[in-house]
């Protein structure tokens, strides 16, 4: 009791007679050092942070926030450091409330104080304090600072110095296992945007530093997604694909395939005819699309959202240019003869919400630039999804592209839409092992396939088409 320090409302100016505690900066159980800011006080003239000139452990906050008290009123008590637990002291002063200038403590604050005490020092009441000597332990300023940085309390450590004094090595040894989490600036920014506590993230940087990629990994839904920046950055669905269609109808409660029987039947008739009549050949190749992925990321970074380009548009644009160079793949087989098309009318496959597929056409796609293809595709998808296709959207296509990348499928061996003679299939962009110049590296890889009608073209023509397509995709900036 005698050791307890009373902390009184200071006089912050000759004319100050009373102050209001606006906010406490400490809680019962906190250690304070001379110079620590303890509370924010309103003097009617201004708000002033008040500091303590004594060291100790806060045992009670006597004045609740919002209360005005005269100068000189005790507003808090500090227990001395290192002389047993605050609980012991509290039990030793049952008459504390009888002190005349002391306002009644609010009940909930008293509870808080109790809880804080209970959660604080580990010594149960009545047992001898862990620290063998009752005089305050000597802790050097350096050790004190290091301990604070490592969120350790030097008073509660067993030191290895003389008289179990805590030395720097003791802090460093503990700090190595418990040390403060380092969070990179980028990780902090990402965590703030994600509403995360970055210190809760497992860091993989040097000395366990939490880096941006750790926050992204922490926040990423579910396993199995490729690293950031290497796949189409969209929450793609992963349901099984139906052969020959670009995008399965999906969504909760409509995955049974019965939503649109009429559309399904039309597809069935077409595909049956294709498989019966068209002698297909299939070619496939793997492309390192690092350039495209990076170009898309860079391009979209600098564009307003309304002008962003999706990978799908790049693939369509490249296919259109390649098809224009390979007339044997761009046209129709009608009445036993091939009729080349005089422009590339590019068929796409778009799923309708509520089930079913539509294959709207981007007419004369080879003469539209990339931005226009993206714009057209965007509009087309909107119209399909809203069931408001225009007449021109259903122009018969001269070649079709199916893109199963959104479904996470690697490779498509497609079924040609008769009377067309070729179908180009794109899979998902995944990181794969890629050998180059005698070294293996992880690269974003895209599988491209071609289904060709062997009555019109052969593997040689198909291979030349794929080679051209690959070259076009290597230079997305020129598309």
């Amino acid at each position, binding site marked *: 009791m005698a050791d307890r320090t009373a902390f009184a409302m200071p006089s912050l100016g000759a004319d100050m007679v009373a102050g209001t505690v606006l906010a406490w900066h400490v809680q019962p159980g906190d250690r304070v050092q001379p110079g620590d800011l303890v509370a924010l006080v309103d003097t009617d003239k201004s708000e002033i942070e008040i500091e303590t000139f004594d060291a100790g452990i806060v045992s009670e906050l006597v004045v609740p926030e919002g209360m005005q008290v005269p100068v000189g009123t005790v507003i808090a008590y500090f227990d001395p450091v290192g002389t047993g637990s605050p609980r012991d002291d509290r039990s030793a002063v049952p008459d504390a409330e009888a002190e005349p200038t002391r306002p009644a403590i609010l009940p909930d604050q008293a509870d808080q104080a109790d809880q804080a005490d209970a959660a604080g020092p580990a010594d149960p009441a009545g047992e001898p304090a862990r620290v063998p000597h009752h005089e305050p332990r000597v802790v050097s300023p350096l050790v004190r600072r290091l301990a604070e940085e490592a969120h350790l309390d030097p008073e509660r450590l067993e030191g290895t110095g003389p008289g179990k004094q805590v030395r720097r090595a003791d802090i460093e040894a503990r700090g190595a296992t418990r040390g403060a989490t380092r969070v990179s600036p980028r990780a902090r920014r*990402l965590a*703030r*945007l*994600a*509403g995360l506590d970055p210190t809760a993230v497992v860091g993989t940087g040097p000395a366990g530093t939490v880096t941006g990629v750790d*926050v*992204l990994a922490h*926040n*990423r*839904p*579910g396993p199995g997604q490729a690293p*950031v*920046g290497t796949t*189409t*950055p*969209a*929450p*793609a*669905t992963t349901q099984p694909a139906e052969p020959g269609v670009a*995008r399965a*109808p*999906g*969504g*909760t409660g*409509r995955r049974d395939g019965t939503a649109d029987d009429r559309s399904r039947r039309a597809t069935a008739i077409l595909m049956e005819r294709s498989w019966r009549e068209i002698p297909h050949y299939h070619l496939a190749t793997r492309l390192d699309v690092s350039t495209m992925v990076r170009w*898309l*990321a860079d391009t*979209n*970074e600098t564009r*307003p*959202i*309304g002008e*962003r380009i*999706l*990978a*799908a548009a790049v693939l369509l644009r490249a296919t259109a240019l390649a098809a224009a160079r390979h007339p044997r793949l761009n046209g129709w087989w009608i009445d036993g003869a091939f009729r080349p098309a005089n422009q590339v009318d590019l068929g796409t496959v778009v799923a309708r*919400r*509520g089930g079913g597929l539509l294959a709207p056409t981007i007419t004369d796609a080879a003469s539209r630039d990339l931005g226009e293809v993206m714009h057209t*595709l*965007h509009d087309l*998808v*909107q119209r399909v*999804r809203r069931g408001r296709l225009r007449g021109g959207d259903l122009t018969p296509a001269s070649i079709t592209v199916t893109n199963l990348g*959104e479904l996470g499928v690697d490779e498509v061996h497609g079924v040609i839409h008769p009377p067309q003679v070729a179908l180009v299939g794109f899979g998902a962009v995944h990181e794969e092992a890629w050998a180059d110049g005698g070294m293996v590296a992880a690269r974003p890889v895209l599988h491209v396939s071609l289904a060709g009608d062997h009555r019109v073209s052969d593997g040689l023509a198909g291979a030349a088409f794929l080679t051209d397509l690959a070259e076009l995709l290597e230079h997305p900036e020129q598309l």
Partner: protein
Amino acid sequence: MNPTCDLILRLLADLAPEIDPAAVDVELPLRDQVDLDSMDTLTLMEAVAEHTGVEVPERDYPLVGSVAALARYTDARRAG
């Protein structure tokens, strides 16, 4: 519920009329609950940008996998 969450659910329902906003768990990944491809995602982000002024760059997509995460992100960016 957070008003931004509400807004996003409305935009989502407008984009995909078959979605019942009440059935969407805002804390769970959206991709596990509704069927959105990259074009849908772009359309949703455009709508969010139009209504809130916040454009989510593609590199931040991994941060906004759920409705609530997107709302937190949007609010954080609006707050500066």
